[in-house]
């Protein structure tokens, strides 16, 4: 499958066929997840209604980290296997990851004010998440700053591969340092520490957000492939007129 989609023309054909189904599936899963989150899930016995913020905050945070790992893996494959779409996929994923990181920071802050009594603290988890946002911005800036796609991919790949060290720091920050942010309650030894009435909507929303990412990624990657095609035509046109 990975090699099959290495051909940009084949990717464009497959993406065009898959896109409507993916949009429909995303709408269904995300719609049902939001219904569970806003209507079915009970208020938490401690957090009250503010627990509903978690149904956006947790999926956005997971994806913010997951997308950065995806970008680093894509660049690694671009470096090693020279997969033609790997760098383009990483480039297409970056703005989506940046927005999910911003959603994570904003919703975390909106949850923190009523629950912790503060919008922000410079604890290890929040700070490392903010660093992730800056890494996304730096990565996007590299693509904007360097004109030639191959050179931009190399520099951006270095940013992605060096920056991925921040992901385990985010994940384990709550264990390595004394943080205001609570320890992991989903991915932890001994299983999730969340009641099923909250866990089920959370998992549906995580699936919905992941599908939303996939839908936006494929559409954005299509735009990137077409943009490179336009660039190729411009170069050929310029070459012919010389």
């Amino acid at each position: 499958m990975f090699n099959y989609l290495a051909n940009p023309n084949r990717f464009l054909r497959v993406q065009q066929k898959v896109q409507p189904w993916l949009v429909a599936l995303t709408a269904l899963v995300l719609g049902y997840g939001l219904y569970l989150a806003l209507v079915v899930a009970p208020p938490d016995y401690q957090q009250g209604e503010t627990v509903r913020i978690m149904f956006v905050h947790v999926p956005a945070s997971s994806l913010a980290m997951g997308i950065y790992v995806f970008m680093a893996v894509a660049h690694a494959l671009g470096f090693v296997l020279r997969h033609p779409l790997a760098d383009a996929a990483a480039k297409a994923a970056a703005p989506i990851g940046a927005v999910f990181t911003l959603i994570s920071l904003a919703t975390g802050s909106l949850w923190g004010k009523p629950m912790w009594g503060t919008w922000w603290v410079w604890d290890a988890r929040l700070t490392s998440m903010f660093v992730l946002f800056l890494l996304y911005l730096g990565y996007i800036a590299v693509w904007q700053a360097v004109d030639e796609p191959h050179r931009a991919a190399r520099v951006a790949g270095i940013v992605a591969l060096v920056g991925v060290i921040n992901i385990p720091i985010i994940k384990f920050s709550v264990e390595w340092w004394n943080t205001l942010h609570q320890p992991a309650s989903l991915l932890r030894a001994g299983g999730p520490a969340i009641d099923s009435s909250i866990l089920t909507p959370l998992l549906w929303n995580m699936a919905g957000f992941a599908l939303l990412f996939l839908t936006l990624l494929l559409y954005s990657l299509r735009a990137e492939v077409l943009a490179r095609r336009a660039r190729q035509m411009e170069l050929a046109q310029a070459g012919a007129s010389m």
Partner: protein
Amino acid sequence: MDFAARHIGYVIAAYGVALVLLAGLVGVIVLRMRAVRKRLAELEAQGARRRAPARASSAENSSAKPAAATFVEGRKPS
């Protein structure tokens, strides 16, 4: 959801912020696609092709590939 509950404004604000940011992201991606399609259509209307016409010197070597042809895959010409 109890709209009279304490701190409900924070919940509404959180969903509102997420919605606005995601809508903005979708908007940016869709606008970029439109701009790219428009540019491609303009180039095609101008008769631009993805490969430069072969020149007399390079035509002698049939295995030579135009330099620009490989850029669609984001790769340096080999």
